[in-house]
């Protein structure tokens, strides 16, 4: 899709914002990747959340849906020049992964529920979603178009 120099990788529990010609990518298991894109400002980002709600004193807001999403939206507006009314959301991930992850087994589903709830509250429309399953997701956002290339392990690439 693009040469690797233009692609930035988002780590787990982190967020990145960029604009064309750059791309953003991440890998998702039980985590949810929220892609927000403003087609007018042509700016977009990926937030990679691990858990639905923040507990304790952890300062890393982007690990959690309830603290990460409002922060991510504000950053897109403040630093990216995006408009909230123009923003579109696409969500990916939320798979049921290794059994060894203990009580994290069903966290993917809870993550997705919380993300959908917050996006609804924020008035941001989800225009595409591919979630669930038992395999990981490899997603790549093209900030020139807002399209997301999604490859689930063992399946062909789909564009959203």
């Amino acid at each position, binding site marked *: 899709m693009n040469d690797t120099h233009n692609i930035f*990788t*988002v*780590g*787990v*529990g*982190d967020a990145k914002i960029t604009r064309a010609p750059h791309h953003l*990518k*991440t*890998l*998702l*298991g*039980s*985590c949810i990747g929220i892609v927000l894109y403003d087609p007018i400002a042509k700016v977009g980002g990926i937030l990679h959340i*691990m*858990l639905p709600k923040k507990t304790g004193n*952890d300062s*890393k807001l982007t*690990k959690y849906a309830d603290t990460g999403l409002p922060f991510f939206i504000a950053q897109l507006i403040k630093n990216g020049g995006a408009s909230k009314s123009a923003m579109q959301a696409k969500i990916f991930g939320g798979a049921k*992964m*290794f*059994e*060894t*992850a*203990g009580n*994290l087994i069903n966290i993917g589903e809870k993550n997705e529920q919380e993300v959908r709830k917050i996006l609804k509250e924020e008035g941001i429309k989800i225009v595409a979603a591919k979630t669930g399953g038992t*395999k*990981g997701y*490899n997603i790549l956002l093209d900030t020139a178009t807002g399209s997301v290339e999604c490859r689930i*392990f*063992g399946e062909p690439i789909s564009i959203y």
Partner: protein
Amino acid sequence: MVISPERLRMLEVIMKLSIDNASRALSKTLRTGAKITLSKIYMADFNEATEKMNNDTREMTGIIVNFKGNLGCKMLFMLPLEGSTILTDYYLRQPVGTTKEFDDDTKSVAQELGNILASHISNSLVSDFNAKLLPEPPQVHNDFAGIIFSSLVMEQGILCDQLLLIETIFEICRTEISCYLFLLPELASLEKLLDAMGTRK
């Protein structure tokens, strides 16, 4: 959490002994040289470590073993998908190329190799350093490398932004297979073990 240089050196000695043990056992099982070399022991930032591994989108087989006991720890042995079929042939003493795809046999062999690595790593720690380590049955999962790595570190990443990672270089002789072997000790229990050994904080 900060680990003193003295403690890191002590940990390096412990891990070298454990990994040498595992290396010898695996070579014997596969009847070919399996060379595991300790690459580095370091405190890694959770975001940076996962970001780095998320760049690795190769399809791999991951074998994760959880250890219970007075030293909580996780081990991840990860090898390219095609490498797991080659190791199956070595393990079953059949010509390389006999196993064409990942199937139940390949999964069983992957679990067995995980068992061998886990038991020899834990044996060293138990006999030489008085740790109590009880390996649980290995879990095998095929996925992108970055996803498997995230599964390893996820629980610790929720509790803490820092990870103590033990990285190795893992090569199987007569093949192009280059594998990952990560050990992820649980920080609180590791600290207690090092306290008991009398190393300076």
